[in-house]
């Protein structure tokens, strides 16, 4: 075990943890007597500095990640997907931290920022993990942080209620995940993703195929919980509704990016091993009656699982969102739908980095947009005391800027050009179709496009209230300065990245050697 090497790989996580401790010391030590807004500002600023420090030390990571010396098994990756996702996680974390500054749901801002930073460290680990145990540790680190964040508005009953629900659901999912991992280890004798994939092509794995099915179903349940894929999405609406807005933004963005980065790692490990095996053995799925050697492999079973999850998520998410009267729940169900689109990209995963790049593009821009949406919701909630659709009536007259930001963000989420959400969907669906032109792929893409059209309906339901209906209360909504700058920045980025789609695409492509 080369601890110095491991430390270098873990430098960004270390930076975040140190920042978390510094925040606690400053907030509980030096600023104990200061006003709440000063403490919130200082804590958020320190948190942002921590994220910046983590970004700054990233180039010091060794190439190739950390490989366990005695067995040659990979633990953590650097560069490629891991690096792109980690940079995204750090940037999105910084943005959610800034959302804290103008809110007052808690007195314990130091603890709040510290927990966010620690959870983000978990996210960084997940994004880089190549080993089942590391994955599990990262997931728990992130999830525990999220449970605490959800419960952070201690005076709010809804916050505590949703946190407990989230925790129970998450605990159950983690149990499933761990159970699935243990089966996988049992079948292949390894915890390294690449070795597991290789092991699944061995003849002795074929005999254990029912076991493999159960293992993958349980893993899908565990990871489906993290990315809020139907039918493992039941926690989403309650959590988004009950959690404090900045915490909900963190759950909806950073946690999503980390979890999808993990799914990309799994997909990439599967296709690369499959690619290596391709020329040597004939890969057949299913049971053979006449006891021929059967090589099950990971990929086909996984493909089928993800296809089911994707289709169910797209349909359930979009249709359920139609019936919502709370904007937070609406965003929550739309998150399920977006997870469905991304799962489609993961199901039809390419040998080239095409799919990985498209998924990263999608999830990063989605995270950015959602943070903005929660920022707007938070401001409206503070002004009206509600996140119901009626609370958004006449928003254009009460605050034209807020309404304009929401319009840009929601149109982007619905995938209207020239906003960035359009290019995200376009790249993703193009990647799917370039991998497979089978009936299933084309059918699912058609379903996804149709469902995007449905999604436009509920996004515009909100915008109709904001722009067409008269406000119940004519008073202007004042935008606090930090939130104003943050929202304007996010909306402008959504427009600019949409007008110049090549900026982000080539940035991501650079992590894959330019593609």
């Amino acid at each position, binding site marked *: 075990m080369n601890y110095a090497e491991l430390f270098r790989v873990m430098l960004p996580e270390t930076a975040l943890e140190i920042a978390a401790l510094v925040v606690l010391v400053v907030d509980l030590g030096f600023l104990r007597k200061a006003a709440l807004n000063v403490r919130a500002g200082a804590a958020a600023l320190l948190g942002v500095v921590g994220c910046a420090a983590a970004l700054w030390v990233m180039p010091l990571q060794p190439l190739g990640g950390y490989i366990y010396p005695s067995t040659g098994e990979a633990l953590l990756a650097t560069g490629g997907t891991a690096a792109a996702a980690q940079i995204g996680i750090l940037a999105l974390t910084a943005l959610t931290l800034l959302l804290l500054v103008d809110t007052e749901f808690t007195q314990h801002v130091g603890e709040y920022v510290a927990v966010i930073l620690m959870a983000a460290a978990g996210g960084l680990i997940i994004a880089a993990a190549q080993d089942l145990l590391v994955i599990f540790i990262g997931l728990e680190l992130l999830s525990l942080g999220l449970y605490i964040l959800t419960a952070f508005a201690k005076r709010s009953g809804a916050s505590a209620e949703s946190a407990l629900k989230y925790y129970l659901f998450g605990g159950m999912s983690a149990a499933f995940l761990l159970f699935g991992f243990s089966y996988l280890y049992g079948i292949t004798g390894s915890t390294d993703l690449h070795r597991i994939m290789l092991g699944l092509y061995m003849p002795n794995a074929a005999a254990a195929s029912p076991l493999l099915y159960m293992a993958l179903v349980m893993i899908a349940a565990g990871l489906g919980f993290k990315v809020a894929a139907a039918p493992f999405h039941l926690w989403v609406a309650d959590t988004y509704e009950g959690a404090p807005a900045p915490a909900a933004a963190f759950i909806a963005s950073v946690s999503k990016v980390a979890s999808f980065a993990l799914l990309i790692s799994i997909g990439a490990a599967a296709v690369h091993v499959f690619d290596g095996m391709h020329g040597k053995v004939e890969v057949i799925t299913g049971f053979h009656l006449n006891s021929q050697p059967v090589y099950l492999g990971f990929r086909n079973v996984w493909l089928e699982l993800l296809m089911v999850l994707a289709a169910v998520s797209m349909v359930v998410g979009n249709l359920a969102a139609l019936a919502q009267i709370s904007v937070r729940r609406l965003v929550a169900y739309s998150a399920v739908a977006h997870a469905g689109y991304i799962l489609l990209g993961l199901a039809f995963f390419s040998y080239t980095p095409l799919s990985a790049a498209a998924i990263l593009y999608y999830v990063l821009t989605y995270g950015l947009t959602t943070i903005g949406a929660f920022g707007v919701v938070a401001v409206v909630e503070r002004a009206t005391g509600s996140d119901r659709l009626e609370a958004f009536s006449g928003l254009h007259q009460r605050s034209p800027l807020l309404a304009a930001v929401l319009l840009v963000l929601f149109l982007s989420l619905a995938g209207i050009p020239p906003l960035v959400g359009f290019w995200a969907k376009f790249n993703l669906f193009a990647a799917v179709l370039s991998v497979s032109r089978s009936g299933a792929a084309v059918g699912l893409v058609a379903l996804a496009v149709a469902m995007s059209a*449905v999604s436009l309906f509920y996004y515009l339901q909100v915008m109709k209230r904001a722009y067409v209906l008269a406000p119940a209360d004519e008073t202007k909504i004042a935008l606090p300065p930090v939130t104003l700058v943050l929202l304007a920045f996010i909306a402008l980025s959504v427009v600019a990245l949409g007008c110049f789609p*090549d900026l982000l695409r080539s940035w991501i492509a650079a992590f894959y050697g330019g593609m």
Partner: protein
Amino acid sequence: MLIQEELTAAFHPGMQACASTVAQYLWLIPAMPMVASGIIALLKQPRRKPAAALAIGSLGLSLLVALAAFAHVVSDWTQHIAVRETVNFTWMQVGASHVELGWVLDPLSAVMMVMVCFVGLLIFIYSVGYMAHDENFTRFFCFLALFAGAMLGVVIANSILLLFMCWELVGLTSYLLIGFWYHKPSAAAAAKKAFVTTRVGDIFFLLGMVWLFAQTGTLLFYNSGTGSLEPLALGGMLATPSALGLTAASAIALLIFAGAVGKSGQLPLHVWLPDAMEGPTPVSALIHAATMVAAGVYLVARVYPLMSAGLAPGGTTLALSVVTWVGAATALFAALIAVAQNDIKRILAYSTVSQLGYMMAGLGLGGVAVGMFHLITHAFFKALLFMGAGSVIHGCHEEQDVRKMGGLRKEMKLTFLTYAAGMLALCGVPIFFSGFWSKDAILEAAHGWPFSQVPYAMLVFGAVLTAFYMTRQVSYVFFGEWRGHGHAHESPAVMTVPLAILAFFAMALGLIGTPAWPWFRAFLDSRVAELDMHAFAEPAWLMLLGTSTVIVVVGIGAGWLLYGNKSPAAEEPDALERALPPVWVALRDRLYADELYGVTVIAFYDWWARVADWLDRFVWGGVVAAVAWLFRGWAQVNRLIDVHGVNGGFDKGCDELAAGGGLISRVQSGRVQSYLRLLAVAVVLLAAILFWSSRG
């Protein structure tokens, strides 16, 4: 032509690889007004001064950059370097194909951007006075700045896609500005008409663009030898046959020309331009006289290598002859109509259509330099005339009917003097006015066209009519007795100073394009400009000078004879009406072009709209309703599951627990139980699906 080829060879091509600093920053020219427009859009209505300052300041900065770029091109040109610097970048990548955008700095774009910035700046300043009383002052400057940015984007574009995008943006701002006083139904209708009519041309332009991309695989005009206007691609397009015996090059050129026809108000798509005069007068001056309508001419000049692909010395191509004929026909047709109009701005509008016809004919007959020279001189004197007309309208309390004016030369001295300069330039009065030199070059080219003398005859007759209708207008407005109501007054200095500056250029600009010193033509063609006074003594030129003089004398003389210093009342029939009643009526009714469209195209659309409406209502509507019903049903089912399944389980759990006395945790545990139950069910179902599907 042959001589020109040899001279061009003496020029070194400019370095393509590394664009100069000024070319690198060329994007600032359109970007600054656009950013200003965005900021103005956020300003509140009463913030008049910042709005005007932002618009004028940004365009002023653009003018500085444009002048720097122009100076760079000129200095290289004097060192015998043919400048064509391009900066290209990939806008997006889809699979293996790149969509590239870029901008170009060459003599053509340099001249055009200086003109647009300069004239635009003067009109912006003038608008401060003209729109002073309008409550939507800030909105006006927002649109105006956006227009300037988009127009400059058209000018610097090196990619047909970028050009098209800015082209559409220009069309949009034109729509917004024509309909600026949208509470007037006629303005709203005119805006719609302009938008829809130009769209007809734009569709063809779009087709041409797509075809060009399909043929050459690039959207860039110039790209170090691989652009679509460079010899390699042109050769390929010439060799590719298409339908009706055309080469691909001709077909694409004609499609792109159709776009120019729409934008530049050429026959048969000219009908929107006179109606566009419903907009505020500075808009008419900037958009519908000096810049946007000239964008079509500029487009043809930009793709001239495509238009002239396969041109033999002394010959012509199909595309160029189409351009010539359409231009000449438009020049004559619109000049005829202008004779019998009574609205001061409408006369100028038809005159603009006519002059755009001259520019097109100039491009078709004599090449880029001839057409562009008239474009530049026309931009100055027509902007001057429109702004003068605006000043007159302003002074006469929003009166636009020339019959209700008269004698204004006394009340509005400065306006009269500048207007007269513009009018004489438009008539083409020899030697002292720029319009003479530029129109002369077109007539010279038409005279030398070996295929037919008909365009020459049309252009000459059009020129006579031009002198005639301008004399008629000036007589009505500035001579005779005051026939309006109230008291006319001179406009403020913020309006008259720009007029004076433009008047100076309307006279002086001719100096850069005389036969003795064809600086402008040499500059655009990248040749050496030599001073040769003997050119004035050449018999061909002297004959043309004679023709021009005759044209002007006949036109102005006839006009003065009929209208000079007389003051017919508004009800009295026009002098020409008494002489030739049927002709007058036909001309007054604009030769029935609108009526013709009314009974053909529009009637067809009405019929088709009714058919589509029926289809929509009874066929597609049914389908959509069915789908909607299906989805709503599904959503309802989902909701029912939510309410009765999930919540029901929750309620039941609550009841059970309440009965059991578990008071504290009833809210959470009931619901989560059913959640977790569903989680387990989902896992089992997924596994079942897997097992079931792998069985077969």
